[in-house]
């Protein structure tokens, strides 16, 4: 693999071909916030908090840093008025579901997000899918998954698999960006009411 020269926040950066913008930034110590990213997992691109501005061929675009592959002469701005505005609102939208989440609160502070902008609907979950994907990709157990779609999407443990696998694993619990206990709650619920009668 060859090397690629690009510019991040005004700095010339030399990185390996095939890297994403996020990896390139991390390799040079530039911080881009993430919530659904995990280095052991396939990039997912769901929280969009890593949105950055890129310039190629004279055009600027907003792209997800965790997915966008680096290109020669790419110009990346990890902060800009547009980027900050997007991150602020994404945080406001997510915080309505997980008001107590530490990771969200910290970022909210940094981006000036108003925690009360949207009516609270605490589900304690921002559907980042870290637990789901970790279980599928690393543990290969698929004990936890998404159900439903659109605005009704949620995470559930599959009772038949969870009963066998989860108590001795729980490796997904600490990955949760909102509340490690949320996974525990859902797991207990799945095992206590396996037929979904809740």
């Amino acid at each position, binding site marked *: 693999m060859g090397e690629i020269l690009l510019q991040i926040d005004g700095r010339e950066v030399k990185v390996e071909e095939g890297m994403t913008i996020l990896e390139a930034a991390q390799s040079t110590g530039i911080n881009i916030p993430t919530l659904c990213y995990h280095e052991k997992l396939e990039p997912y691109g769901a929280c*969009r908090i890593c949105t950055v501005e890129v310039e190629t061929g004279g055009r600027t675009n907003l792209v*997800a840093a965790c*997915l966008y592959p680096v290109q020669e002469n790419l110009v990346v701005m990890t902060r800009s008025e547009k980027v900050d505005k*997007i991150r602020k609102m*994404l945080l406001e939208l997510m915080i309505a*579901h997980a008001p107590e989440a530490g990771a969200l609160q910290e970022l909210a502070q940094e981006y000036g997000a108003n925690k009360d902008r949207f009516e609270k609907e605490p589900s304690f979950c921002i559907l980042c899918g870290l637990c789901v994907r970790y279980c599928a990709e690393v543990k290969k157990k698929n004990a936890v998954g998404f159900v439903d*779609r*659109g605005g*009704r999407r949620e995470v559930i443990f599959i009772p038949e698999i969870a009963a066998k696998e989860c108590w001795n694993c729980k490796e997904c619990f600490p990955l949760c960006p909102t509340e490690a206990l949320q996974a525990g709650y859902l797991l207990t619920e799945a095992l206590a009411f396996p037929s979904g009668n809740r």
Partner: protein
Amino acid sequence: MPRINSPTELEELRKSILSKRDPDRPCIAICAGTSCLALGNDRVIGAFEEEIKKQSLEAKVDIRATGCHGFCEKGPNIVIYPEEICYMEVIPEGVSDIISQTVLGKKVIDRLIYTDPNTGEKAAHQSEIPFYKNQMRHLIGNNTKVDPKSIDDYLALGGYSALSKSLFEMTPEQVLEEIKKANLRGRGGGGFPTGLKWETARNAPGEKKYVIVNAHEGEPGAFMDRALFTGNPHSVLEGLIIGAYAIGSHQGFIYTRHDTPQLRNNIVVALTQAEGYGLLGENILGSGFNFNVEVHLDIGIFVSGESSALMRSIEGKTPEPRPKYIRTAVSGIWEKPSNLNNVETWANVPQIINNGSEWYTSIGTERSKGTKLISLSGNICNTGVVEVPMGTSLREIVYDIGGGIPNGKKLKAIHFGGPLGGSIPASLLDTPLDFDELAKLGAPMGAGGMLVMDEDTNMVDVARFFLNFLTDESCGKCVPCREGIRQMLKILTNITQGKGREGDVALLEELAEVAGNASLCALGRTSSNPLLSTLYYFRDEYEGIKENG
């Protein structure tokens, strides 16, 4: 079925089919499209069969159950050949009269022909009925002439001659060049240049390449792909095989609806018949070119029509969009170059090859060429499937073809492109049907669903309807789309209930901007089109409702 091994054999077969057909022999083409069937046309078909048997006319009169004729409003529809007499709103009880008076007696029955509701003028032939005569039915017009389950009907109309020409008289590069010169643009919503996409897939590295028909048609209010594909499946299939040849693909997929058994069935029959004749499979027409097609049923959710979600679905995974920083034409199904086109796009290919790109570019506007299928619905007299040359004004579609607005109401707005499209006011009625003109006005054509709305329509409700639709029909993976739609919908619901608040409109605009800029796929990125267009053209309705409340 004899296998055809050369272009000469194809022409011989065609001649032999035609020689067995008497052009003067009466044939009753009965619409068996979705809408007419729902109106009871299966009973009409049954009644004709019975009557013909009763009068022992089997050797003298043919019946053809066809795809959608287009004039759904007036169904059940029939056309009687060779005179091409159109009868509308036919009931089983009228069948024996039709046989004795028209088919045998050659007399037109007045009460069954079209009557203009305004002038009272009568019209018996497609060439005289305003709904049909103001169209240019290059694609859908053959629906009345073929039984979708008969490849011989398609061959009789010159079918598969474009394939034969491509394989034996043109190189793949020449086929590609012809499509590029024709300026064919994708009919599935984006209007992307088809030739460029084919070229990208063709040049992408890798031996294995796929070509795909997008027959998902998830846009609410759109029913023209179904009408075309169900009624004339070989026209789409022929286009697909030609595309595969140009791109260098040997495997195709048809991604179609799980809930339209008739369409699925007609596709399967078409594939089997094409294979039987050697027009599909190994060594097509003896050319050495191999190509196979598999049918995949969709997951009945709107987002599964999006290209990357569709490809995941074909891989057997959940139809969730994949970020497309690498185009699917380069890396699609199983990371192989995968060229996806809409049903109507593929159906345009054979006629471009047959008639040449110059003929094709003579139809339409500067940047939108050819004809376009439109599903006309809403507050319009003539609901149905319409085909017009690009550049036709919306006024002509609404009034000359659509017959205007029913119940003496005034036209208020026209909505194009379903949940990812937009609404424009009646004052813009002289806008031509054109990808770029409509997109500029904030009402991108989408796949061609055209919803006509009268003066009683509440435009905030229209925006709310589409956002509500997307709540259930998006995947819910990414935050800006899932949460953005949730909040926009809440605000709109409040406004329509008179509970709007100061700052609602500004917040809606900010949510729309974030969803538009940060969402993962085109669904999220264009989900606020209906909202933004109605905010732009009908802003007072948003603000007015707030004040009243």
